[in-house]
């Protein structure tokens, strides 16, 4: 098979992608990468082995980026372009990037903690140029570039979740979620399958439901971007954060 393959059955997880290379991840998170081409080394390390390493060590990977301001963390989900725009916008609002997506997390005494992941932060080149942020192409011909944004290097307690979507006519620009809608969003936050935490690769339904409930207890908001170039969307999110998280704490 010419596509990627992953084996999580052995103690050491192995992955291969013909023409890109192979990766190995041990149970304690050590990684080794053997790229087929020189330009594939970073892709294997940051785009594959690094992620598997978090999962192998028992971290849950959220399908979101994580940020912080003060001592509280924020998870941001959405389409890649919209999340990138939000990262760039929030970094102007004193937010620090904890992790580009996916974001490693772990439950500690009923609290969700986001952990810093040091991999480069990827955004679409067009989006970075628009924001006046310089970057480095990750691969020849790729539309993704790595940008340098202020980072947080310590874990942080997650205090809220934001979902960035495109605004349609007649829709509110900001929609604080409650009840079933908050639960529905929470239920799709964590990545499963290959990036499920090693110890809970096949969790029982009760545990999954319990996690969804705990995630749904966090304040959650839908931020709607008015077009893909809506620079104010991140500002609205920052205002909401201030009123909902910072004032409350």
């Amino acid at each position, binding site marked *: *098979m*010419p*596509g*990627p*393959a*992953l084996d999580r059955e052995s103690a050491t997880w192995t*992955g291969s*992608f*013909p*023409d*890109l290379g192979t990766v190995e991840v041990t149970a304690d998170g050590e990684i080794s990468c053997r790229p087929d081409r020189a*330009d594939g080394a*970073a*892709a294997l390390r*940051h*785009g*594959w082995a690094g*992620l*598997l390493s978090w*999962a192998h060590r028992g971290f849950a*990977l959220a*399908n979101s980026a994580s940020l912080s301001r003060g001592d509280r963390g924020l998870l941001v989900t959405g*389409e*890649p*372009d919209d999340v*990138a725009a939000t990262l760039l916008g929030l970094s102007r609002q004193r937010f620090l990037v904890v992790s580009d997506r*996916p974001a490693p997390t772990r439950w500690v005494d009923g609290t969700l903690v986001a952990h810093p992941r040091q991999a480069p932060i*990827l*955004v*679409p*080149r067009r*989006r970075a140029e628009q924001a006046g942020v310089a970057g480095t192409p*990750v*691969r*020849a*011909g*790729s*539309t*993704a*570039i790595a940008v340098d944004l202020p980072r947080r290097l310590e874990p942080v307690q997650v205090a809220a979740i934001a979902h960035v979507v*495109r*605004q*349609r*006519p*007649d829709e509110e620009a900001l929609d604080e979620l409650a009840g079933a809608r908050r639960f529905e969003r929470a239920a799709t936050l964590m*990545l*499963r*399958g*290959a*990036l499920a935490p090693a110890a809970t690769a096949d969790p029982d339904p009760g545990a999954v439901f319990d996690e969804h409930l705990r995630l749904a207890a966090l304040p959650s908001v839908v931020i709607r971007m008015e*077009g893909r170039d809506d620079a104010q969307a991140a500002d609205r999110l920052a205002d909401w954060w201030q009123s909902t998280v910072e004032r409350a704490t």
Partner: protein
Amino acid sequence: MTGAAGRTVWLASYPKSGNTWVRAVVTALGTHPHLFGVDHLVSGAQPQHVGSALGAYGLDPRWLSGDELDALRDALCRRMGAGGPGDPPVLRKTHERYRPGPPGREPFPAAATRAAILVVRDPRDVASSFAPFFGVTLEEAVAVMGRDGGEPEPNAALAQSASPWGTWSTHAQSWLADDVPFPVHLVRYEDLQADAAGTLLPVFEAIGLPCTADTLAAAVEQARFDRLQESETARGFKETSPRTRRFFRCGRSGGWRDELAPAQATAIEDAHADAMRLLGYLPADDPLHLPAALGIRVGSGPVPAALADAVRPRPWIQATPTAALLRFRGGAGLLVEDGTDVTVDAGSGQADQVGWMVQGWGVTLAMLQRGLLSLHASTVVVGGHVLAIAGDRGAGKSTTSMALRARGHRLLCDDVTVVEFRDGGAWTTPFWRNVHLLEDAAAAVGVDFASLPALGAGRVKSAFRAEDPADVPQRLERIVVLAPDDDESVRVEHPAGAARLATLVAHTSRDGVAPVVLGQERYFAQVAHLADLVPITVVHRPRSGWSLDAVLDSIEADARAPGSEGVPR
């Protein structure tokens, strides 16, 4: 065709062609009615989105090159479509055109594919729906549908492989090509509207989707368009474009006739003629073609030199109560019998002459034999009013009609207006036929005369195909008679009383054929009835010199004048 081993069934369509409707039916098949809603439609995972690699392999596709994205897409498709013939199908929406790929880089891997369902829709209706959905003008929609390229390229930053749509034509043609290595079931949106369950049942049976006639009928009912609209209003629809309020807009066929300007419709027809003919959206490129609704059968073969028992035979036309025989220069002949059967003897003529004979004379004679009146007139909608533009040979009917069309009015039928009396009015059902233009008339209305097929029968005209008319009856509101005379300017006259009858008799009978076929008494009764029902305007124009704009102005002003609602003045 080979392969067809996997579970994937590609639900392929150009955007705004009914793909989501079919998905709604499939969703309804597997959902309790109380739980059904457009916010949870199945089969929406499009193949170019490779973000699922995170869950499948733990791999972030944003780090990949374009070639690696292709390989990843291939692998994800195989993974999702793995299974055998006994497994239920996995339907997956795609707007991409079909294209093959090298092993390991197939956009639609044959080994994982059971079949495809290609949903097509009249491109003129697609344009009407495309424009508001994507927030572009109709002109832009027409341009996009005709432009190959400009669609999404591989975009690693967005975790997307390439997803080319092609043009509206190349999209459909790509899926219907012989080298597609799995079965492709063609479904027309218009057929779904007419009978969704009947259209889909054999397709679903072929792909192994569990359903019966009863369950499918219930699903179709559940996914009725107005219910989808209600569901969207109540619960939203995540697939709605950010640029539009509604995904489920109106869902009708033929709406383009009210929404597209004639030039826009023509641009689509010109750009996509081959595929439109292939899919039945334009008459087949066959000069003998006539719409089935006319109920005319056309054959070719020798016709008799004369008709026995002909009433008042003339050298070029002979008629009995049930048959009419026409003779043309060059030896061509046309025999029309019983209002239905047309036999063409092309003589030394060319195929396009045969079309001209059938579309003009064949239809006229058949309708007269059925007791209907066939006016030598074009049917045009001017300012919302249905007019017949009548006149003798050379009066300028086609030129005037085409010029009105160029001003944004709708040309329904050139040169023949079949009239039926019912419900207290005169009604005409237009049908497709070429517009015949002289060179100077073509130039005047901006048509490239040299590019059109020449029309024979001794006249230097070309055949221009205008847009298809709706084959629904139209109430005739006014008859405009073009009358070239020796006046120096355009003059409008509204004849009254007997003068109306005389005007119709003088200007609307195609070379005096109607009284021959209908019989004098019946013909005059019909014309008198028409004169009684429909107002008449005579537009006198100078026989020499160019007065087209003034003629058009007069017709437009007359159509707008009081009394244009079908009440004789």
